[in-house]
């Protein structure tokens, strides 16, 4: 249980509107599957299971494509338009002048950084090849052998960038926890206790989620097949 924050003399019941939806199921699934698959990707390549590593990367590509689409047509808190904000909004948040649900303006930056660096990492993996020429990403045929080698080198270095971003993400969660707010439980249950009067989440439609998923799978399979007609 997160420690309750007291607001002066006001009874908590009048300030909080009970547990309300914050994160929809697709967002939570994408989040935890990404966390799990990134860990699995590291493990599989570290222990020489390069084929599993490539499959895991392709699954990550599917999740990222889904997340991109859901960020445009999904629930209100999933939409990029709801949390990608300018420096003014970030400063305003730091001064305490922000109320809302979902990613705050600063957290939104972290989400963009994490998603784009994971996308960069997956993209590099798609065109990379291993140093022995045994394994290659499904799109390696679109670039030269030297480019594939360079992509692998950057893929290796960028993993540390991704680790640093993940460390920052976890540190921020700990920071909020120490200040009495648990961010982990809402990402599991989808619900959080919010101040009364907060604009509620507008849930997306389940069939649109299925449609986004179908498109994400379709594009991934097209990549896996070598992205004809651009393929070798």
């Amino acid at each position: 249980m997160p420690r309750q924050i007291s607001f002066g003399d006001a009874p908590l019941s009048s300030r909080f509107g009970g547990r309300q939806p914050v994160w929809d199921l697709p967002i939570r699934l994408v989040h935890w599957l990404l966390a799990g698959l990134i860990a699995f990707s590291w493990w599989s390549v570290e222990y020489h299971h390069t084929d599993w590593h490539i499959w895991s990367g392709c699954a990550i590509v599917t999740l990222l494509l889904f997340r991109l689409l859901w960020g445009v047509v999904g629930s209100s808190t999933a939409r990029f338009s709801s949390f990608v904000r300018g420096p003014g909004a970030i400063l305003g948040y730091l001064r305490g002048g922000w109320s809302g649900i979902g990613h705050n303006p600063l957290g939104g930056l972290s989400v963009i950084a994490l998603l784009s660096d994971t996308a960069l990492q997956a993209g590099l993996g798609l065109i990379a090849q291993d140093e022995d020429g045994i394994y290659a990403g499904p799109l390696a045929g679109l670039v030269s052998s030297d480019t594939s080698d360079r992509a692998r080198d950057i893929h290796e270095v960028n993993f540390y960038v991704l680790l640093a971003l993940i460390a920052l993400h976890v540190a921020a969660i700990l920071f909020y926890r120490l200040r009495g707010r648990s961010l982990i439980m809402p990402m599991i249950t989808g619900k959080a206790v919010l101040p009364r009067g907060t604009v509620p989440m507008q849930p997306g439609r389940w069939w649109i989620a299925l449609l986004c998923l179908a498109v994400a799978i379709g594009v991934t399979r097209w990549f896996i097949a070598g992205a004809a007609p651009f393929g070798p």
Partner: protein
Amino acid sequence: MRNALIAATIASALLSACGGPQTSSANNTQSNMSDTASPPATAQGSTTTQGNATAPDMSAVSGDQAKTVMHERHEGMESIGKTTKALKRQLDSASPDMAAVSAGAAQIQDLSGKATGWFHAGTGPDVGKTGAKPEIWQNQQDFAAKLRGFQEAAKAFNAAAMSGDAPSIKTKFGELGQSCKACHDKYRSEMHH
């Protein structure tokens, strides 16, 4: 119900990825791994260039001779790697250049024969910069068996390339790759660039 549906479909997204990036991870069917490797030859400089499966010459070398062996090994491995990469690109493409595939297969078989002389004792990481692990000289029997597996896979791949039978070429190329991997996973360190 709705949630369950979404959960099920996201799970299938993951499965979709298992449908198939094409990796040459054919079942590891290295031939004759059960054969006991012949004991390492002791005479120095008995390298073979015939491309036949022979036990590696693991007699000790030192000084300039060690440096020469390490240099040859590095260049040879790099050459095998480059050739394999080019072969994979050809074989993954819609219309492989079969002349290039045959040339590459012959080159790898030739280099696999030369590999017999690349692992003299005294050419490990204690002597110079190399990815060769000390375990090579601690498990000589196993190492010799793996090297022989590579040589036989190279020979089989070359034979397939000469036959021109596309499915067999792909299978043998996959097996060749696995024979590289079998040794590298165990006997090559990550710090070898």
